[in-house]
């Protein structure tokens, strides 16, 4: 009964690999369809297009999946190390992913790729923040201002405003539920 939701972290990697592959497959199909159509001979445009999509778009999907899986793995590692989940994790793991996936191209390419990955992820976070901030006001400009919250019930009643020169001690010792203010001024 205690736990309705499990920890997302190790399982999320698989989810991310799958969704990244799907994304790459769809996007790759669209782009490969264009290039296949352009590069095929006249009269065989349709066949060439389908062949190009069939052969090349799963490769794009796999590349996306590698990126997504690496990214999610590093993100989960950072969560485990820092014990904290915030946008900084995803920016760092974006940069690390970019660098690690380009590891066979040498340090210069790695640095560039890491920078690019970090910037892209930072921009994704930035876009998310901007949309989250502006969406509310753009959806309904006539909406009421946010309502004031009551203090949580878990807290004891708030103490009275402190007056200079008066001790708070008799305030708290008021017997029988008498208002402390009367005791104080008496």
């Amino acid at each position, binding site marked *: 009964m205690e736990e309705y939701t499990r920890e*997302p972290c190790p399982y999320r990697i698989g989810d991310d690999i799958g*969704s990244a592959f799907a994304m790459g497959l769809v996007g790759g199909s669209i782009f490969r369809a264009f290039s296949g159509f352009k590069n095929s001979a006249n009269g065989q445009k349709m066949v060439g297009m389908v062949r190009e999509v069939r052969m090349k778009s799963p490769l794009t999907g796999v590349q996306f999946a590698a990126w997504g899986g690496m990214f999610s793995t590093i993100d989960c590692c950072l969560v485990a190390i820092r014990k904290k989940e915030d*946008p900084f994790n995803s920016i760092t793991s974006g940069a690390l992913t970019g660098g690690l996936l380009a590891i066979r191209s040498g340090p210069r390419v790695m640095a560039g790729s890491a920078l690019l990955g970090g910037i892209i992820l930072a921009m994704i976070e*930035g876009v998310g*923040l*901007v949309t989250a901030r502006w969406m509310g006001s753009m959806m309904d400009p006539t909406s009421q*201002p946010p309502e004031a919250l009551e203090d*949580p019930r*878990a807290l004891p009643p*708030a103490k009275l405003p402190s007056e200079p020169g008066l001790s708070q001690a008799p305030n708290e010792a008021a017997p029988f539920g008498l208002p402390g203010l009367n005791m104080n001024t008496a």
Partner: protein
Amino acid sequence: MGCNLYHKIFTTLFLVGPTTSRRFLFGTAKILQSRKSDGQVAQKDQHRSILEEVLIKEQQKPTTFAGKTAEKAQNTFLYVIVAGSIGLLGTFAYFLFEEFFAQDSPQYIFSKALDLVRSDYRCADLFGNTIKGFGEETSRGRRRHVAHHKYEKDGNERIRVKFHLKGDLGEGTCQVEKEKKDGEWIYRFLFVETKGGHPRTTHILIDNREE
């Protein structure tokens, strides 16, 4: 013409090395100026790979006035695109910076409150020695978004932030409220509450409330 433009952007940005990227920054027209005679072109072509031969197609320099104007207009259009993109990136970067470092941003409050909770002995008793902090969980398994509510009471801005805690011994939530008084954000209250077990244990770390 449009296809030509994209080809230009593609070749200048992705296909070629740093020297030609630099040329892009100082004007695409310089690519065409750099080769004056056929002999130079031939000499240069010896160093090009087959892939470059196929992929990089150099255009002829326009000789007519209309052609030159079109070239300039195209370059100006590219510069405008680049400037606009840089502006947009700057906006996003600003918001990101604000999210991390602004006094009234939920992320900042969450980060500081988590530090306070971790350094508190009673919290270590309740949750364990290593306490993990995270926000609300989305369907994709991300827990970065911290629940918060900004409102105004008695003319003072307030923000209440709630996030989750998890340690070796148990789970719980933490609620923080900050109020802007005389231009400074100060804590109004900060308490943690265990989750699951009955009765719930509440531990108040900060209580600055006044009626």
